[in-house]
């Protein structure tokens, strides 16, 4: 029946659009994290210099930088995903309870990054790499278990790269160089992963013939 053929083809269009929205949300979030977090860390580690230049107490500079980094990062990521999930979420997700996967992933990232505060000072930047590696890996696992969307291998590869980068950073003895390398590795991994996701989002839009 022609009408049914039309419906089936239209369903394919809808699925590709949802795939595009999902990947675009991840892409934007990864780029935001890769840009904002290292920037915040640079300000925090150079708080004494900023305090000297501005005349503001160094601890206050650190506190404000830390708060702004968290607020901007989480705010941007939450806004991006909320916009995508509001469009993507299906009736079946609500029935099966798999709409909780978004909350689970947010919790995983929050807990992972919160745990970095327990790390000794000399391991702060390495713990950042570990936390993000763990968060990426658990996000991949949650997506695979809930079957909400095709688990994105880019997230898994990002987890592995961040883990490898942490080993590289640990191998560097000089504290300044290892700190800079750690931040650079974190930033590059996230931003490159974000751009790959964006490219995949654009490919998802295109008709597969």
């Amino acid at each position: 029946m022609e009408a049914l053929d039309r419906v089936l083809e239209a369903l394919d269009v809808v699925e590709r659009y949802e795939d595009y929205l999902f990947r675009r949300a991840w892409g934007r979030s990864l780029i935001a994290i890769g840009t904002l977090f290292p920037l915040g860390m640079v300000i925090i580690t150079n708080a004494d210099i900023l305090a000297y230049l501005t005349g503001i107490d160094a601890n206050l500079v650190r506190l404000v930088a830390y708060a702004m980094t968290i607020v901007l990062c989480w705010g941007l990521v939450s806004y991006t995903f909320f916009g995508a999930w509001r469009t993507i979420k299906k009736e079946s997700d609500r029935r099966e309870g798999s709409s909780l996967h978004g909350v689970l992933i947010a919790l995983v990232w929050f807990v992972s990054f919160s745990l970095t505060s327990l790390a000794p000072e000399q391991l702060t930047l390495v713990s950042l790499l570990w936390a993000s590696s763990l968060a990426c890996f658990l996000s991949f696992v949650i997506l695979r278990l809930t079957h909400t969307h095709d688990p994105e291998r880019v997230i898994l590869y990002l987890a592995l790269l961040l883990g490898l980068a942490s080993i590289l950073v640990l191998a560097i003895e000089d504290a300044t160089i290892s700190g800079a390398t750690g931040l650079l590795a974190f930033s590059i991994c996230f931003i490159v992963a974000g751009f790959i996701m964006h490219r995949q989002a654009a490919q998802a839009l295109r008709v597969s013939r």
Partner: protein
Amino acid sequence: MVGSLLKDPLNLSKEERVFQSQPRFSIVYLLFLKRRIGFIQLKDLLGLTPGNLDHHLKKLEEVGLTRSRRVLSWRPLVVVEITQEGIEVFRNYIVRLKSLLEGIPDKLLYDK
């Protein structure tokens, strides 16, 4: 009468006939579910040229099913939206399509 039923089992209205082409049906279906989408995303999703998509959108706009508007973003964007009339027309169409399928007797589905 049977002949006309076979030719047009859904008894389509003027508005419903407009989205009987595949691209227009996909546009209306997508907008029914998502309410709005960018022109560029729509063009890529359907694999149409800008002129081709524009032609289909004009047909839908002529019968009041969709509308396009420019939004200000970091670059000018054209967004296509479904109208309230478009939502109701499409919903009625899908309800009639579903009831047409439900009219198939069970014994025909499970008879070997």
